[in-house]
């Protein structure tokens, strides 16, 4: 395996990132990375918690040059981060804000504002260097590590850009509503612009009005990396942005109707990525044209009897697909939803088994189960939980859960019950939990 440059085809004065009228050029970026790399402690692993996408990228690149692994935690809750750091002794935190995690050393990512000359040689990174570990939620209650090589990240970035027709030197500004610490965000909003020599927006717009104003300010063509959730919010607001952009959605299935509305409103094509943390981005489709997914260049989805795997030159071994799918002879495929234990809440995949284990570790909880009701109106369907914890209130349990789970996974509501309807073998059939939720909703109704 050979080495490839740390950055794509930027000229020294090309913009790498912008925010609020300020820009950082490729020359300044390399100066920032070099300065930070020299000051990093000699440690094996790092938790990069930077809020700014640019600061994250500076920290990520500096860690790569120092041969350090960046951990991409699935959960940002403080207790979950501490546990993760405990699994990787010697970990420290890179941050661009004041948040500290007790017991972990923190190093600030400072933009030096320095002006180093453009280097004769761009630093090279071996394609087989492991640069990050993404974590997924396993049914055992412990996060499952997935190693990411430089080859995997750059390979996906190149293949995605090629599929979307992005060429070197295009004037494109990439804006993302997704976090850069998650696989899709890292691939599509950090690595994709970096490898194509285009600019990224350092912030993370949340509300439709934010998205509109950022897109309106993009120098050149805009590309929006987002989720069905944000698209639905934008469509509901009927906003206007410059036509001819490019939208890339992932993390949850995008409905055809919503894709059509989004294409009309944004006057832009809406593409969707299918992927998962273990394999990264796998396939693409333009949602309005059909349900069929076409694997990215260099990626194969292989069906063997009941199981399917993803294979690619940068994956050391075939990776099982966590969804039920069928593959056509030409290699394209159709998706039919997640395997039973895996659920998707607001674009975040999680194992119910993992959540249940987390719940059972809470002091005073004797029994408990998380449950995802069938979809209903509104932007997001939230998890519910039924808990047996004599002497505890649901507020106390919620409060304890908050230290372990991201807010999106907190049950709404968390209902305390005297016992769970377990069957003779101790199992809790979905039908029984469904009945429990019906009873609960029937008695109280939603809301008041």
């Amino acid at each position: 395996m050979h080495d490839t440059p740390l950055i794509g085809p930027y000229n020294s004065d090309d913009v790498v990132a912008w925010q609020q009228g300020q820009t950082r050029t490729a020359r300044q970026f390399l100066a920032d990375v070099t300065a930070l790399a020299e000051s990093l402690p000699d440690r094996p692993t790092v938790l990069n918690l930077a809020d700014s996408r640019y600061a994250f990228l500076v920290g990520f690149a500096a860690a790569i040059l120092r041969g350090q692994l960046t951990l991409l935690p699935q959960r940002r809750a403080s207790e979950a981060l501490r546990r993760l750091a405990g699994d990787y002794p010697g970990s420290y935190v890179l941050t661009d804000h004041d948040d500290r995690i007790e017991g972990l050393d923190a190093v600030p990512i400072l933009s030096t504002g320095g002006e180093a000359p453009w280097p004769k040689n761009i630093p090279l990174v071996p394609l087989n260097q492991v640069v990050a570990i993404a974590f997924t939620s396993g049914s055992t209650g412990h996060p499952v590590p997935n190693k990411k090589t430089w080859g995997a990240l750059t390979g996906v970035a190149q293949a995605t850009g090629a599929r979307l027709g992005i060429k070197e030197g295009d004037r494109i500004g990439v804006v993302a509503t997704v976090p850069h610490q998650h696989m899709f965000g890292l691939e599509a909003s950090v690595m994709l612009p970096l490898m194509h020599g285009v600019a990224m927006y350092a912030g993370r717009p949340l509300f439709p009005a934010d998205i509109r104003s950022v897109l309106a300010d993009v120098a050149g063509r805009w590309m929006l990396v987002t989720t069905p959730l944000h698209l639905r919010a934008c469509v509901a607001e009927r906003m206007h942005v410059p036509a001819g952009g490019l939208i890339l959605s992932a993390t949850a299935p995008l409905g055809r109707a919503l894709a059509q509305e989004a294409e009309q409103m944004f006057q832009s094509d809406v593409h969707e990525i299918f992927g998962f943390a273990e394999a990264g981005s796998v396939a693409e489709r333009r949602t309005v044209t059909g349900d069929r997914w076409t694997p990215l260049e260099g990626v194969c989805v292989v069906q063997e009897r009941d199981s399917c795997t993803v294979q690619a030159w940068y994956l050391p071994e075939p990776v099982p697909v966590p969804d039920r799918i069928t593959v056509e002879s030409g290699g394209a495929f159709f998706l039919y939803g997640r395997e039973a234990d895996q659920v998707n809440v607001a674009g975040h995949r999680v194992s119910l088994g993992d959540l249940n284990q987390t719940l059972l570790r809470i002091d005073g909880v004797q029994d408990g189960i998380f449950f995802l009701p069938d979809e209903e109106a509104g932007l997001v369907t939230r998890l519910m939980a039924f808990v047996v914890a004599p002497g505890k209130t649901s507020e106390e349990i919620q409060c304890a859960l908050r230290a372990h789970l991201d807010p999106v996974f907190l049950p709404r509501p968390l209902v305390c019950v005297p016992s769970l309807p377990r069957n003779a073998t101790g199992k809790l059939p979905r039908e029984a939990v469904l009945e429990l939720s019906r009873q609960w909703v029937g008695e109280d109704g939603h809301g008041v």
Partner: protein
Amino acid sequence: MTRPGSPSLEPDLAKLIVQTLKLKVDPVSIQPEAPLFGEGLGLDSIDALELSLAISQTYGYQLKSSDPEIKTIFSSLRALANAVEKYRTK
């Protein structure tokens, strides 16, 4: 910031919050000064997004996270009610 002679928006907004986010609380039990996010009601950024849509549709006020006051606006029911009162277009 309440318009002279007009009743506070707090009760209406409390109802909107509970309905939009399907919370299991009585709207009148929401303390006007208590935090809405994190501790308090325990709302998160997706709630903020849902709530922003409901407020935009009901009052014609589009929230922006680039607004320097956004943290204050979302800090409590009272602060939110004041902001909606000030910027509403319907």
